[in-house]
Every structure is written in C-alpha cells, then in structure tokens.
C-alpha cells in the first residue's frame, strides 16, 4: 500500500552544495511521508495522541529561517502543478474559508497511520475492521495565495535557495477551478485545501489570517460519493504552521528619514500625481494608517482624491496604482464600473456552506484603491446598491459583513482606502478626508501611464522607500507632551473663535495627520514641528476644498 515517493523536488533546483544541509531536513523535504510513517511506528505503543508529535518533529527540523527556506515554496511562481505529488511544500497563504471539521480514522486496519492521507483508501471486507474509537477530527481550511500581495514583497519573503531558478515563463499559471473563492476571480491566485491534524495548530488560525503552512501536497478528489464527477483539487496535509510575527524592517538612521520621505513624496507626485505634492503626502499618509483602536473606534482615515481628470485614451488605470504596488506589500486595485458593481462580489457571501470571496476579503494591513474613473451612466441594480453599501460599511467601520444563509457575520478588517474620483466628490462613498487634486503640470495624461513608462528610482532608494512605509505601518504611537497638547487645545479654541464652523471632526483629522507623520518620521513624541506640518497640510486641503466649492458655485 505504501506509495512510492520518488521525489525529485530537490533535484530540479540547483541546490548549492556548500550549504550544510542537515540530513534531517533533507529527509523531511525529500520524503515527508516516510518521515511521518517512521514517527508513527516509533510511537505506536505510546498512548499519547500522534498529531502533536508530527508538529513538534517538523517544527524542530525547520526551526530556523534558513531551514524553512529549503522547503520548496508553493506560490504564484511555483503553482501546485509543478510540484510532484506528495512532496513537502511551504505555502504562504490567507485563510479564505473555514469548513466544518472532518472525521478520519487515525489508525487504519493493520495498525497503520491514518493521517496525512498516506494511505488514501481503505478496502475493508466489512465494517468490523473499523474501530470507531480511532476516529479523530481534523480541521479543514481553504487557503488562498495572499490576495493583493505585491510581487516584490512575495519575492522578499520567498527569498529562497530556489529563487535562483529563473521564473521561466514556461510554467503556466495554475488556474483554480474554484475561482469564486478568490477575492479577484480574474487573478492568477489559487487556493488549496488545508487539512490540519493537530488541533493546537488551529488555535491562531482565524478567518483571513495569513500564515505559512508546511505540509504534504497531494491531489485529491473532493466531493461526496453521490456526486458522479468530483474534482481533483490540491490538498495540503499540514505538518506545521508558522504564523508570522511582524518582523521589524531595518531601522533607518533617523537623520535620513526626512530625506527619504521627501524623495518619496517627490517621486510619487512626479510620476503619478502630476506634480501635486500635497496629494502625494496624503496618499502616503493614508497608506500607512491602521486600525488603532476599535473601542472607541479610531480607524484608518479613508481618502478620496477628487477632480482627477479622465484619461484621454487608453488605460484607465491611474499610474498611482503601479506606483503603490511597487511600494506597498499588500495592495489591490478595484476598478469600479457599473458592470463590476452590479455583477461582482465585494464582500464574501456564503451560498450554503461555501463561502465565496469578494474584492474586500484581503488581509489586515492591505490598502485598497478604488477608482471611479470607469463609471459611466446607467442603472445600478439591487446587487450594486448592496455592494456600495457594503463597501461603505467596511470603509467606515473596518468590519466585513459577510452574508450567510439567514444570518450575518462580521469580521474585523484593517484596510486603508484610497478613492480616485472624477468629480467634486464621490457619488457613492463618504470618506474621512477629501482632497481635490491640483495638477502642477498641464499634461494630465501623465496621470495615466503604463508601468514601463514609470521612471523607477534605483534599487537602494526603492528599498528605502519600502522600509520607510512598512516601518511606519507597524510603528508605535507617539506620546504627546503637555506643552504640545496645550498648544493643540489652544489652536482649536482660537480657531473656533474665528470660525464657528470648525468642528471636532476637523481637529480629529488634524491630530490623525500629525500622528501618521510622526510614525513616518520615526518620532517618539509629537513635536511642535510635526503639529505645524499637519496643520499646514490640513489648511492646504481646506483651502482647496473651499476653492473647489466656490468654483462650483
């Protein structure tokens, strides 16, 4: 019954020989099934549960970053089709759906190991051989490649020995048959069933958690006996899981931070926003915001860039999309159009027991850019209206409301929203911050261009940008000294004296901007400079809005 494992997964990759590879790692990578069988046979007489043994064995073997990197990755560049059957892979993925657990026989007739699908089917003369006491539960998840993960970021994390294998275009992307389970059904993302035997591993796995799963990849037909045709889908029998702890990027020297930030603003404004530096600053600020507290709700501010002219011809994807995907690790673009609104799913929805995904099912820390440039006149049907309502709900509450049959579930999200709007204000959404774009150069076609036309900074610079942003996203909050707090209070009181229409919302926005600036500059404390800078930005924004308002009247 034992299947043969002529795994060549390592042979295909050019393994540098000078690397000292421990035999255990090699064993586990080359022939994971037999490792499990050996473990099982060793512990056959002990009374303890088997799955935790597997977990502890595999996590000791792959205890360092280096050793983990020796496991072939399962990713967009290495889709399931290129891996030989039953090979050990690592899969960085987001949990898209959690199924009800399954029962399996942990000890097969003949005392063989029942888990990890080492022996796929059992032929029994009668049910007598089956001891129902050996039934155990395994958790079943559906995990997908992290939606919206930028290529550079994925590459950084993959950072493996196998990176040397050039991404040959000959590997066709694997098109999953379950494309309704992808946030963007037209992407090349794919999903894999995860079967987790050790209950302890599932503790931290929640809806939309991102983690690295190590396990044995196999193709199995999923479906019940009643269905005549069942599909073969990739299944990962998990041996251990790594829920990533946020690694802090190299701390840049404080004195260079300001320079990097200014360069970044320059680059973004020049390449994507027709020279509008204020707009570039707001875009950057909103992309590093995160949920600070849920009760009371202090959520990332959503931004709409208004008055963005339509492209004369060609692509309607603004250049800012390409720029941000080069800068942010998790970034998705949703082009709003009547067709998309009326037909696509924006939030996950459960049909029966299958949870279909939606555009907004993205992991925490993502930035989603919605463009309203593609909107034309026409009807929005009920589904469209519901979509708009759902998007607004996520935007203002940072919680994803998923529709289940006869019930509704909410899941926390942490998504930054940037809206690109053609008119004076978005007809669909209200955002915390609204900023009219003021192109500094006449040629507005520069707002739309292909990725190839973008002038990229050198690698070092680009990496500095990226580190600045991801550091700011994770950075800690600043403290505020009594003196500055008093200054802020004083400013507010004075402002109110002059202009009655100033509300607490204005003050809140200003403080938020100051806070985000502080995080970008790696400040520990809110300084007067930062506060002044925030005030300046906000004043500029207000001025523009008023000018725009007056122009309209």
């Amino acid at each position: 019954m034992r299947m043969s494992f002529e795994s060549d997964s390592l042979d295909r990759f050019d393994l540098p020989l000078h690397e000292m590879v421990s035999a255990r790692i090699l064993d586990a990578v080359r022939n994971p099934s037999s490792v499990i069988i050996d473990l099982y046979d060793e512990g056959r007489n002990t009374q303890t549960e088997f799955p935790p043994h597997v977990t502890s064995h595999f996590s000791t073997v792959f205890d360092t970053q280096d050793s983990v990197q020796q496991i072939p990755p399962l990713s967009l560049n290495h889709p399931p089709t290129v891996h030989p059957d039953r090979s050990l892979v690592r899969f960085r993925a987001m949990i898209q759906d959690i199924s009800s657990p399954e029962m399996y026989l942990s000890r097969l007739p003949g005392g063989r190991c029942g888990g990890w699908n080492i022996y796929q089917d059992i032929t029994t003369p009668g049910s007598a051989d089956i001891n129902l006491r050996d039934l155990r539960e395994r958790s079943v998840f559906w995990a997908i490649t992290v939606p919206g993960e930028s290529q550079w970021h994925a590459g950084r994390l993959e950072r493996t020995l196998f990176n040397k294998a050039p991404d040959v275009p000959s590997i066709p992307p694997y098109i999953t048959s379950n494309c309704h389970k992808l946030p963007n059904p037209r992407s090349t993302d794919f999903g894999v069933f995860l079967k987790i035997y050790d209950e302890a591993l599932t503790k931290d796995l929640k809806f939309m958690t991102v983690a690295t799963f190590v396990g044995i990849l196999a193709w199995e037909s999923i479906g019940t006996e009643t269905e005549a045709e069942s599909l073969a889908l990739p299944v990962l029998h998990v041996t251990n899981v790594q829920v990533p702890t946020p690694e802090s990027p190299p701390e840049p020297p404080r004195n260079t931070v300001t320079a990097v930030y200014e360069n970044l603003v320059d680059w973004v404004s020049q390449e994507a926003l027709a020279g509008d530096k204020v707009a570039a600053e707001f875009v950057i600020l909103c992309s590093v915001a995160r949920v600070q507290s849920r009760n009371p709700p202090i959520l990332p501010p959503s931004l709409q860039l208004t008055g963005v002219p339509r492209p004369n011809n060609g692509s309607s994807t603004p250049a800012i999309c390409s720029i941000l995907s080069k800068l942010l690790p998790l970034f998705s673009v949703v082009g709003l159009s009547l067709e998309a609104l009326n037909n696509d799913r924006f939030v996950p929805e459960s049909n029966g027991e299958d949870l279909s995904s939606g555009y907004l099912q993205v992991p925490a820390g993502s930035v989603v850019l919605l463009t309203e440039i593609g909107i034309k006149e026409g009807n929005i049907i009920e589904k469209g209206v519901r979509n708009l309502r759902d998007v607004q709900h996520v935007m203002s509450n940072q919680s994803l409301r998923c529709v289940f049959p006869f019930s509704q579930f909410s899941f926390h999200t942490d998504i930054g929203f940037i809206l690109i709007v053609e008119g004076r204000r978005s007809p669909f959404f209200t955002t915390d911050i609204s900023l009219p774009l003021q192109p500094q150069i006449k040629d507005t076609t520069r707002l739309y261009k292909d990725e190839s036309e973008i002038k990229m900074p050198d690698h070092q610079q680009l990496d500095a940008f990226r580190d600045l942003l991801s550091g700011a996203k994770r950075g800690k909050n600043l403290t505020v000294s009594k003196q500055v707090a008093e200054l802020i209070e004083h400013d507010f009181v004075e402002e109110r004296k002059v202009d009655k229409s100033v509300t607490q919302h204005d003050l809140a926005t200003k403080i938020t901007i100051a806070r985000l600036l502080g995080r970008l500059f790696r400040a520990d404390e809110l300084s007067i400079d930062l506060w002044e800078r925030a005030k300046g930005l906000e004043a500029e924004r207000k001025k523009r809005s008023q000018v725009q308002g007056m122009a309209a009247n």
Partner: protein
Amino acid sequence: MSSPINFPDSDVEMQEEDSVEQSMLDAPRRQPLFDPATPSTAGTPRRSAVPSTPGIMARRALGMSTPKSAPRTPLFEVGSSSPMNFPSSSPKKASRAPGRPYDGDFPSSDPIDFPSSPSKTPTNRRGDIHSTFSLTPSKRSSRKQPPTNRGDLFSDDMNSDFPDRPPVSSGPMFSAPAAPSEDEPDEIRAIWGTTVNLAETMKTFREFLRGFKIKYRVNHDREQGKHRTLGSPQEGEVVLYEQYLRRMRQTGETNLNLDMVNLLAYPPSKKLYTQLTKYPQEVVPAMDQVLKDLMLELAEQDQNHGFDEMSGVQGEEEIAEIMTKVYKIRPFGIGAVNMRELNPGDTDKLVCIKGLVIRATPVIPDMKVAFFRCSTCQHTVQVEIDRGKIDEPSRCPRDVCASMGTMVLVHNRCEFADRQVIRLQETPDAVPDGQTPHTVSLSVYDELVDVTKPGDRLIVTGIFRSVPVRVNPKTRTIKNLFKTFLDVVHVKMGSSGTLAFDKSTRPAGGDRIPGVGGVGGAEEEEEDEARKEGRRTRRAAMESKLKELSTRPDVYELLAQSLAPSIWGMDNVKKGILLQLFGGTNKSIARGGGGGGPRYRGDINVLLVGDPGTSKSQILKYVHKIAPRGVYTSGKGSSAVGLTAYVTRDPDSKQLVLESGALVLSDGGVCCIDEFDKMSDATRSVLHEVMEQQTVSIAKAGIITTLNARTSILAAANPVGSKYDVDLTITKNIDLPPTLISRFDLLYLVLDQVDEMLDRKLAQHLVGLYLEDSPETAGQDLLPVEELSAYINYARSRIHPVITEEASGELVRSYVELRNAGDDPRSNEKRITATTRQLESMIRLSEAHARMRFSSFVEFDDVKEAYRLMRDAIRTSATDPKTGKIDMGLLDTGVGQQDRKLRGDMGKELLNILDGAGNRGIRWTDALKQLEGQSSIRINTAEFSEVIKTLEREGLVKVVGDRERRTIRRIEGA
C-alpha cells in the same frame, strides 16, 4: 388469569385521581388535561393532523395499505411468546441464559414469521434509532394476565415496591424511594459491552412514568438554584406522565416528549439519564416499549375504573387502537453543546445542539423493510434495515430451493419511512471571534419531517453518527473520511438568538414555541435553556460578571460613558439614551372592559435636535449596534414603505409575501432614524401610529393587516436653517409637527456653542483619545460593546421593576413641581409646563433607571434621576426664547404662552381697527401697516395671517378677494 384484585396499585391510583380532582376544585384555573405549562397538542407544528405511523406517507404514496386501516390481530399472540419478548410480556424469557447478549432475535431473522404473515402488530422501526434491538410491541397481555404473572421482575409490582410512597395528604416529600435493586440472576440483558441491564432500565423507566410528580422537579430546580413556586401543594403531587399518557390516548398522539431533567429529578431514575445519553440506541426502544405497555395498562385501568370515555365499546376500540400504534419517546432536555464541541467520542451518543436550518431536502422515502421474492420458488423474505443498511439475501432461504442470486426486490411491498436531511448551521452567537460557522447534517424521520424550514432556529436532540465515505457507491473501498450527522429524536424550535427582543412585549404564552410532535414538553423554555447552557458556557461567567457590574456604585456613569466613548461630553444625552435602551416596563390592565385593557407602552422615545457636526449620527450608530434589535435607517432614504412593511411577490412561490420594514423589524427593540426632518410627511405620519399605538397598519395588494411595532424610537433631526436659531422656538427650528414632537419622552437640543471652556475640554479629550496608544486603558474604563449589549439584554429580559410607595410619592411630588414651574408669581397667567405625558415619561424613565441598577423596585433615587433628566431635557427644549420660561405648550401646540398672549392682543387691536373702518372693511396691507404703527415690536406677517385666520374661524371677520386686493371686513353683529 385475569383478576382485578391483582392490580395492586389501584388504590393508590384512585387516590391520586382524587388528588387531581381535588386540585381542580381548589384551583379552577388549572385543568390538568390542558396543563398550561405544556404545549397543547393542537399547537404543535405537525405536518399532518392525523398521527401517522412511521412511513404512512411513503406507504400511501406507494399505494400500500397502512397498518391503521387493518388492525392487526394482536390477540392472537396473547400468551404465545415472540422470541423477542421482554420480561414484561413473556415469562418464558426467564429461562434465558444469563448474560447472553441480546442478539439475533429480531423477528426478521425468524423465518417462521415469513412469508405467510409479513405484517403483525406494527413493529417499532424508528428511523432515528437503527437499533439492533427490534422490540416487539407488547401484547395485550396485562389484561389477561395479572401483572404478577408478567415475569418475576414485576412480582411485587408498584405498591409493594413503594412502601414509603408519600400519601397524598402529606406535605411535599422529596425522598422518592430508591429503585428496588432486585438482582435477577436468571435474566440479565445487558447492553452489549456494558453492565447496563436493560430489564432493569425498563423497570426503572416504568416506575418513573408512574411515579414522577412535579414536586420532584421543583425540588431539583431548587437545588440548582432556580426557584419556582407552585400554586398549591396539590399541584406538586400531580403524576405528570400519567396525565400525559391520558392526553395521548385522547388526542391519538403517539409521541411522548421526555424532559430528561425530570429523569434526573426523580431520584430512582437518576441513572437512566446517563444510560439514555450513552446508549440511546438500546435504551430508547426499551423506553418505547415501556411506554406502550403503560399506555395499554393505563387504558385498561381507566376502563376498569369506568372512566367516561373508556366505557363499553368505545373503550374497547380505544384499546384496540392503542394496540395498533407505535409509541415513541422523544427525549430532550440535555444541555445543548456547541456544534464544534461534538467530537468523535460522541459517536452513537445522545447529544443536543442548537443551530439555524439553512437547507432541507424534500422528503426522501427511506426503506425500512425490504421485501424480497425468490424468482424461482416465489418464496418471499423480508429484511429489515440494520444500521442504515439492508443486506440483500444472496440465496433463497428455503432449504428446498436455496438457489443463489434469485432474490428480487419487490418495491411496492417494501416499507418506507419519511426521511429528510437538514443542514444545520451555527448561529452567530455561538461562533468564536474570527471563525466562520460550522455546519452539521441532520436526518429527521417520520413526524419530524417537514416540521422545520430553512431559517428556523432549532434545538435538536439526536444521536451522533459517523459513517465512512465510499470511494464510489459500488465498491467496498472507503475513503479515510467519515461523514457525520445526527439522527434526530427531538426537535425544538428555538427562539431568536442575537435578535433579542423585549419579552414583555409578547403576550403571555402567545407565541410559545413548542416542542415538536407529541405530548409533554418544554416548560420554562428560555430560562431553562439559559440555565442549562450556563452550566458549561461562558454565559454563566458573563452573567455573574454583569451582576457584579450592577453593584458598582458608578455603574450608571460607566454605562453612559461606554455608550459612545468617542463622543465627548453630552452626558445627559447619553444617560437619557441609556435609559431608553433599558426601557420602562410594559403594562397592561388585565381586568376591566373587554377582558384586558390597552397596553401601556414602556418604550422611551428620544429626539435629538441640533447643529450639524455634533455627532448625532454617531450616537445613533452606536445605539444601533448596542440595542437589542436595533435598526438604523435614514429619513432621507426611507419611504413609508421602507419603514413599515411592503408586499412583494416571492420569486419562487409567486405568492404575495409581506416583508417587514425597519419599524416592524425593530419590534421590541430600538429603531434609530437619522435625518428625521428630511422624512416625507407620509412616512412621518406612520410614526404617529407607531409611537402611540405601537402598531403598523398595512393595506396593500389585498393584504390588510396590523403588525406590531413595539419599538422605541431614537431620532435625530437638523434644524430648518441647518444652524439652530436660538432666538426661535424649537418648533420653529425643526420642521416637525408638534403632535409628533410631543410624543418623544426626551427631546435634547445638541447645540454647537462656541465656548472657550467647552472647546478646550473637547480638544483635550480628542488629543487624549487619538494620541494614546491604547485609548481604552486611558484613565477611564469602558465596557466593550458586547458586554454593554449583554448587560442591557439581561436587564430587559430579567428585570421588571415595581414602583415602591416611596417612589410613587416622589413621582407625584416631582410632577406637581414640574407643573408648578409654570407658575409665575408676577402674572396670573398659567403656562403649562408638564402634562400627563410627562408624568408617564417620568414613570418610564424611573423604571428604566431601576432596571439599569438590576433592581426589582423603583426607588426614590430612580425617580430623582428621572426627574433630573426630564427637567434637563425640558429646560433645553421647551424654553420659550422670548421669556426664558419653560412652556410645554411649545411642544404640544407649537405656540408658546408669550405668542398666544401676543396673538390675543393683536386680534383685539385688529378688531378695533376694523370697527373704526366701517362696512367696507380694510385692506390687508393697510391693516398690517396700521397695526405696525401702534405696536412697539415688529409684526410678523405670518403671525398676522394666523391671527386673521383665528378671527375668521370665530366668525368675527371675513376676508374677501385675494392676493393684493384682500380686504378684511368686520362681520356685523358679531
């Protein structure tokens, strides 16, 4: 063989009958036969009115005769022993070897029964059990055989076994006798692999049914810390299950719902609880058997006692009918566990889970007995289902024939049962944070088929099964994957989970949700449920936490703070809204005209009016999240249809269906309406009905109905000119009819005033809020939304405060004070500062405040706080800007005292002018000018026309012409 003397317990029975009657005399309200505490059979949701034996539908569909139409011949078997008989009906059994497992004795395996008589007394083939035990129903033996002859086990029968059975006259006695443990060495039918003696189990169960009285349960509950008082001591002496059995006989019901907590409560039957939970497969059929035996026994006993409906031919028929029926026990009442707690260890055990039906298959005919005929010799064989499988005989069982592979299934002589597969999904309240709901399959059989529909919340009790999945149906190869499902034995429709509503809005016993099918059942549903669950879930922890919280001295402030933590200040508004969430108690006058007066609402309505940008909408959104059944709607977007209900055609069934709008959806909760002023008049007019009558009337597309909308309303409105004009009255500032405004208990003005002190504090608050790393720990502690919500739900459902003497005195005093506030010593005019509406509001607010403290009495301080809030709200909203005095007339009629006086003066003056002008009258504009000349203040044209309208109505003046040429004439003689 039959001698009535051998009914040893008849005396006791007699006495107990007496006691039942006695209690009826004492308490006429209580009718034992229609015990109000148990659901009436008429009310149980059943697919068919006729009690059906298993498979009746399917068999009818197949054109087969049902057992009912042809009463079998049970008498022919009297005395003869079926190989499967239990001791109760077969003394022969005693000769069995001890310890012999109970196998291989099903009738199906006895070839002698076939082929000539395939149908006997209906065998109990429960789809939900799949037992290896197929028990024969009892023969009508008890009648012919005295109980003493029915096996040694029952040699002494009840009376002697119960020497210390409490006499009826004695007070409640809770020590029921322990089960007699006579070991029967000859006869041990143990459940395979265990030491559970089935005969013993049956005997104990029999004693339980005969001996269980309500007082045992009351006592048990008391031990669990739950108190219930009985109307009279006799009530506790009612032998519950005998009553149920009689009712089953009268109604033709065949299912008995068995609350397993009763098994625990009755000391002798305690171990049955565990046995039933662990080995339902064996114990349930045994119990079914006992039930039937007892049904017969009771029927005969009643016949002997000459009960009315059991005399003569009728009684004989009754008994004959009982013989033909299959009786089933439907156990329930074990604590519901979460679906995700079901694990492989629960396989084949009795479990109870809760969930939401998301899908149900059509009825599936499930083969119970297969009928095979040998194609060679025409010999026929019946094969019963065994653990979900039917084994096709490979060869003809007749030795003469014995040909291989000749047995052919004859479909229309097989027996089928109804079966349905239901998918049950976890409800949001049971799912841990960040998880998606799990789903489990249910198999329901017979009476339970089609009882539930998708969308129902259920509490099901059933046997947990795991069966292997085959690679494909034709092979024996199985996957290493097991399908799990529940074979359901009992279904109870649950009430809502998250959509908690104020239970006092429901009529008592009105929409009771009964257990399904059969007699006996749920008594105190929700509370019971909560208690049972409380034992094992975090709910208990939460409950004690809430109670602890309620004892904090600053609980009021804490709750108000937590209501909308990001909004600074507005303490009184928050407190008012907090009390709205708790609500007053609903009252109705039970006696009086029409057998019950109107219901007085306990709902508190709140209106916020104020400048834009003062976080009104934010407050509404908070409330909507916290409130039970909170619904949020914006006045701008909602038409009358969206608020009330609308009629649509269901796309599937093409039937007209009524869909509820926001108001109906929030029935028993809070409806938050933003942009109240932007609402169309038609929509708003609906609110008049809702706020006072608490109903919504619909007359659309041929559907005329009145729906309940017992909802509190929290509305927010902006002033007319977007900015509140402090120089105008509130009615002028908001474009709302005064009649509607007066229906709000609390009306708050939320003004954005530039005030350096306030501004500074606000800025401080925001700086602290936005710049702290974790604001929730910053100085003040706040309750998370869930906890606050739980607190409010708990208070609303459990606490119904009563007004104390002291509080009522204070209420009167406060009301008088509020009315007197209108007295102005300098003038003899009286302003109205409070009306009875305000008194009612004050009562509601005091009740809400008491509820908030988890106090069951409204006390002095509650009224004080209610008065303070009222005054605060009145001060801000009903102050006449011209005089600075409180005037409720402003809210009630829209015109303040000062204005009324002004108008009166203007009218007098105008009459004077007209009198001077003579017959021709005076032009409108001239009159206005003349008046203005006399007056020290500017005359408002609108006010002027208002005055003229009044005078016209009074018949003093007449206006002719229109527009510029309008002329006012004095009417002569008037």
